[in-house]
């Protein structure tokens, strides 16, 4: 009876709060800048949550840059890749300021820094470890030295050659720094982690490839590849917020926006991420 009384008095209506109706679209810039690589940015608009349409990429955004070495220039729209490119190459420690202008959106700007190079090396010990099945497997290890006195962020991807292409190996994350509590697994199976557990020290992390993973490949053929990168804090925080958003969506499906996630952005007046990384790849035979 109590429930009936309460339910009878529980009414519902539909509202359109002003904060949603007064929405101002923003410019969304996304891109990852690697040292010694060409730069690439995509530009799209954001739309109101009340909007049923979703426009595609923008091709008339004026994107300019200046660097800490006073280089200036513009990004050029590339029809094929539907993004903006620049032939500028950056070195570790370089600072890049990017500005995006479009008549329909507030002007956005962003300042990024290419992370410092990290002394690192990798080795392969054939049948040097025991895989998850208890059989001998190739031991692939990476050693690098963390820069002390600052928080550093890293990305690690280990791949094997299947005769046609490098395929990611699912990292078992047995290393404490790579464990689920302390790191993130990205869509491409690479792991994002921090130096919280080895600040300023030399760090070695290793995985054992499943027995027979590269069976049949010639002796001197490339077998494994380690993609190792030192990434910016914005890079880490962006992907951390995306990871939480994925989890929140699962919960949302069960009932409500209890777990709203603000996606990290370093694009002032806009949205998106201009991430930076210093990257070093090791191919192991």
């Amino acid at each position: 009876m109590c429930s009936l009384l309460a339910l009878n008095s529980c009414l519902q209506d539909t509202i359109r709060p002003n904060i949603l109706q007064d929405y101002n679209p923003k410019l969304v810039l996304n891109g990852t800048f690697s040292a010694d690589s060409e730069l690439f940015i995509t530009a799209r608009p954001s739309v109101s949550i009340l909007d049923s349409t979703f426009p595609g990429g923008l091709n008339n955004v004026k994107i300019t840059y200046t660097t800490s070495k006073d280089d200036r220039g513009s990004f050029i729209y590339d029809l094929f890749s539907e993004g903006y490119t620049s032939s500028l190459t950056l070195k570790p420690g370089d600072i890049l300021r990017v500005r995006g202008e479009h008549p329909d959106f507030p002007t956005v700007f962003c300042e990024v820094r290419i992370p410092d190079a990290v002394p690192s090396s990798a080795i392969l010990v054939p049948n040097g470890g025991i895989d998850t099945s208890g059989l001998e497997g190739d031991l692939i290890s990476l050693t690098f030295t963390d820069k002390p006195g600052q928080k550093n962020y890293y990305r690690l991807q280990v791949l094997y050659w299947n005769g046609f292409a490098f395929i990611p190996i699912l990292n078992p994350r047995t290393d404490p720094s790579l464990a689920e509590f302390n790191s993130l697994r990205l869509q491409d199976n690479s792991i994002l982690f921090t130096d919280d557990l080895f600040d300023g020290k030399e760090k070695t992390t290793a995985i054992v490839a499943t027995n027979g993973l590269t069976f049949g490949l010639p002796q001197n053929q490339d077998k494994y590849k380690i993609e190792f990168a030192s990434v910016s804090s914005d890079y880490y925080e962006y992907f951390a917020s995306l990871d939480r958003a994925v989890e929140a969506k699962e919960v949302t499906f069960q009932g409500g926006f209890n777990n709203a996630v603000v996606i990290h952005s370093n694009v002032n007046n806009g949205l998106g991420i201009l991430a930076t990384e210093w990257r070093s790849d090791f191919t192991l035979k």
Partner: protein
Amino acid sequence: MLKICLLAVGLLISLNSIAQRIATGKVVDQHENAVSNVRIQERGTANVTYSQGDGTYLLSYFDSEIPIIFSHEDFDTVVLKLNPQSTTTVFLSLKWNSNSYNLGFLAGFTDFTHKNTNKNLQNMPYFLGESDVNRQLQMLPGIEQGREGYSNLFVRGGEADQNLMLYNGTPIYNSNHIYGISSVFHHRSIKNTAVYKGVAPARYGGRASSYIDLSSEKNAKFSSFSGEFEMTPLNAGIYLSNIQKDKKYFTISARRSWIDLLLPTETRENSINTNIYDLQLNMGKTLKNKDKVDFSFMSTRDLYFIAFAGQDSNNIVTSQAGFKQKWSNILASVKYSSQLNTKTTVENTAYYSGYRASTAIEQQLFTLRAQGATSLPTQKEESVSGIRDIGLQSHFTYLFENKHQLSFGIQSATRLFQVGRREYSSVNYPSISDVFVLTGTPKYDATQEIALYAEDDFRVNDNTILNMGVRQVFFVNDKKVFVGFEPRIHGTFYLKNSDVFKLGYNRHNQYVSQLNLGTIGSPSNIWVPATKLILPQKMDILEAAYERKLGKFFAGTINGFYKRLQNLNLVNNLSDASDPSIDWQSSVTQGTGQVYGVELMLQRSSGYFNGWISYAYSKSTRNFQELFAQDFDFTYDRPHMLKIHANYTDENADWNFGFNIVVGSGQLFTLPIGKFRDINDEIQLEYNTLNNYRSPLYTRLDLSLVRLKPNFGLNQEWRFYLYNALGNRNPLNISVDFEGNSNFNALQINRAYLAYVPGIAYIVKF
């Protein structure tokens, strides 16, 4: 070191007890209400003491032939000769045109027996007719209900788990019935509610927001046997009390939902069942040697069960699935109070508090039964969580001299946590082996909290009281020892015109937290200890208050406070936190918060028509770096709140009535404002900040109308209630859905609200 300290204290106690004569007692007015701050002086000497907040006094004096003067500016002076080692109750008469309101006490303190007296809260409007202690507290400035219609308490921008709710000194870990719609404390079963909204004596500890001390009836002005029977749409309840004044007491309070009893037994067992109950039993006695023993027991339970039958295309029942949720509290305590010597009293308490919540899903298949099998193929999954608290406490009060009353003690709590245990079984399936899987923590994990505290209630002069206390806490969990030092400092400064200024600073540490898994008050929320990774919550509060009597009937208070909160917990992954197989610590992020505010309250404490008007301005923000780089408003932040409670109470009248008016800032919700593509080209929702949408002005009028009608020698009452009588659209919940469940489509926002909620209660008193 500890032994030396104890020895020194013991020596001090014995030496002082030999030196002087002691008189103890209580100062009350003509209605036997306690009178605080009465000046008690040995005539012609500078030997002075003052009555405490509960009216008690303890005077150390030199000559039993010299009269003792009891004086207070609002009461007629009384001169008495006291017998040594005697206990005397002194009655004072209120002067004509004087105000009996008790100034003093700690800043932010409220209770309805000693300080905020004669409020007749039985005539307050109550939600659905359930006269709930929490609903009374929600009408005080600085205490909010959180979600509309719920019985939760958020004190000065703090979290719900930061309130320590004590029932006769024993902590209770879930004080909710029906997922938070009603509390387990019926108004009639509680004699006094005392709330410390921040600054608290050193004997209270372990929570970062407030201490809510609920006491059952233990004594009365007259010896009597009385009772009350109550019937509401939700419950039938009975309250009985047998009190022999100053000698012994026995009270029992029991409520149970009754609507389920109208259903056939078969329906309750196989289809649907929902019932709740709570039972409180208290007894105590004053022994021949004046020692006192008190025993308290409490049990509560909520049970909800629903089953569904599965049918095939021919409408033949093929399976049955049932869902059962249950949660319960059991509290028990025994307290032994004794007078060690003329200057020293001690209260020794042992208590147990256990809370357990379980959710079970069971499915039976009727069509898959193996040939010859007698049992049906069955799958069952049950999740259990709980907490058990076993406490031992000793609290000493010691009159060092008339200007110094010391209190000190030790509190030990062995706290056992079962964060989550899930049992899955699959049995009697043909051709498949039975499966039993256990995940999570199979047993309770133990932690230990020990607190040592001491406090000096120092009367500096006629106008100044300093409460100087310290509390040292040691908390051990998994070999990690946390040490927390908590200063508790408070000054009370009586000014000239019946007014008082107070200033206090406190620190509180909290070593146990409740993870909010989606809904405050939900039984699924789990209690967890502080760990190496999830550090104890910490709160610092600075508070100033000004209090003044206004004319004969009114009193006004202004409180200003600033709170800093550290190591606050927030669940950032609800699904993982609910999964016992995953370490809960990985789903929790810690952050900081700050709250500041001003609370004004004008109250009338005498006459037929009384109540209060309050206004609170406060700002409560949070910062969780992992969620959002900047500060954002706390979910239950309500900057402006105006609350009015008034009632007309005349036991000789045919009709009594009461009303509540609440006007203030709307509740915060988080709405996505836009959408965009991320670096992986997937659609993400844009939030400019968390808690970005404040619903329109909150306005609510609640009414109560009470018909008093003696019949057949019994006092009968019909109570009629109406919640949100003006039908204002204060959101209970905001739900958002994309049309067609596609992120590409527009968002639709639905608002649910409660309006014109009726309530009724029938009461017979005897």
